[in-house]
């Protein structure tokens, strides 16, 4: 039976170990950047894995937001302001956050499972015995791919939600908001700072999710139970981290 003290020390130890792990990943980044083909492979895997779910979710979120937003704004005679509403909500908040949560569930869990399985089947050990550093060859490229892919996916999400499917389709085509008004408002209410902050957020989220995923996979117990636990931990811890980071970043960016 583990006493509560040792549970706390275990958690602290895990936290500390994660820091050292992150340091070794960062140290391996230069060598990983020297292998663009490996990186491209990983970005493709991560991006393609997540693309469909991001596109579909972006559309649905945009559509729901259009319905809700319209209903609320029309009471104030401000239905034409749907564009502003969208620009602010999607670009600043829902875009980065929802994309990151979906990313954690799809790509993050897959990443943790893949690395955990490589550990369980001695592939990582095998690499070490072949004098190949698994952190340089396996972990760092996947980490970089995650950090790189997240802002891109977030922009695609925003594009789907605001432009193509969601807001535009429902707001303009279905509910009759004026096309010109919608776009000109988005144009005027979206400043470079908003887009920049949104990209910063999604990059930070990408780094957090990728870090958590590779850490969980790399330190998983080499059993099927261990891998499964690593996968679920990745999703849970990532989601909490995303929401907490969102709070901190939003307070500093948009107060």
């Amino acid at each position: 039976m583990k006493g509560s003290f040792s549970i706390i020390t275990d958690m602290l130890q895990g936290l500390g170990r994660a820091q050292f792990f992150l340091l070794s990943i960062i140290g391996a980044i230069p060598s990983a950047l020297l292998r663009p083909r490996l990186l491209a492979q990983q970005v493709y895997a991560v991006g393609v894995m997540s693309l469909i779910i991001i596109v579909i979710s972006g559309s649905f979120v945009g559509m729901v937001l259009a319905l809700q937003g319209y209903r609320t704004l029309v009471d104030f005679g401000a239905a034409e302001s749907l564009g502003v509403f969208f620009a602010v909500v999607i670009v600043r908040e829902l875009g980065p956050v929802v994309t990151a949560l979906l990313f954690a569930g799809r790509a993050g869990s897959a990443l943790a499972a893949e690395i955990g399985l490589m550990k369980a089947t001695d592939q990582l050990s095998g690499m070490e015995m072949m004098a190949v550093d698994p952190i340089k060859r396996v972990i760092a490229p996947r980490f970089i791919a995650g950090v790189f892919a997240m802002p891109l996916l977030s922009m695609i999400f925003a594009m789907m939600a605001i432009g193509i499917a969601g807001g535009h389709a429902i707001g303009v085509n279905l509910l009759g908001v004026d096309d010109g008004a919608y776009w000109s408002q988005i144009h005027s209410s979206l400043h470079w700072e908003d887009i920049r902050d949104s990209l910063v957020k999604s990059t930070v989220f990408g780094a957090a999710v990728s870090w958590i995923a590779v850490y969980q996979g790399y330190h998983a117990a080499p059993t099927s139970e261990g891998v499964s636990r690593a996968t679920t931990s990745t999703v849970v811890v990532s989601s909490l981290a995303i929401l907490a980071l969102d709070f901190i970043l939003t307070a500093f960016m948009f107060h």
Partner: protein
Amino acid sequence: MTTNASDDAALVRVRGLNFSHGPRVIYDGVDVDIPRGKVTAIMGPSGTGKTTLLRIIGGQWRPAAGTVEFDGVNVHTQRRTALYELRKRMGMLFQNGALLTDLSVFENVAFPLREHTQLPESMIRDLVLMKLEAVGLRGARDLYPSQLSGGMSRRVGLARAIALDPDLVMYDEPFTGQDPISMGVLMRLIRSLNDALGLTSIVVSHDVEEVLSISDYAYVIASGKVLASGTPDSIRNSDSPYVQQFLRGEPDGPVAFHYKAAAYADDLMNKGAQK
């Protein structure tokens, strides 16, 4: 227990090894000499930590006390780059082959060549085909690990382990779970590769007859200590009752059949009383 070392110098020298995994003591003062150019068997019951010994020799794990020397160099005092240089001279065959699942057979064997040498692709191709030919799997080069049987995976692992022409090859339980034919194939490969390439081989196994039939030298390790060492014949004629039980596969002897428990009659009687 001092070893009866042959006249050949030892490629690997382990002295006074102490290693624990958590509360369990795995090695309690172990001395092992691996003679150059020969096949040495490490035998013992499951869970004694035979795989651990290989990882310690390879520098993956650190002993609590004692030294491990590879070709005169202390493995554990090396910094990372030097350790990696040492490892390039060692090849290791893991129990399940440990092939990279996203690469084909060809790419798996080419992996160490691509990572550690600047050889042109044409040369790498030739080398890979030669190694695959040596293990009899040249025709399987485009298959993926998921399409291979266990025995085939191990043979590919073996081809990969000798890709860089190492000085030492370590085999971790190569015969476990193999059908007689695959076992025969692996046994022949281990022996013939060792002789043809001038390798030093360490075979960790508890398949007694199989491993003894191809070894020049053997150790029996149990309970953290070396119980016996010598040529296969001297092991077979050992006085130690433990070694004899192990070699003959007898169910009872120094390793008891019954897990420690109270007297049988008492246990049955108490059951009635506790109700």
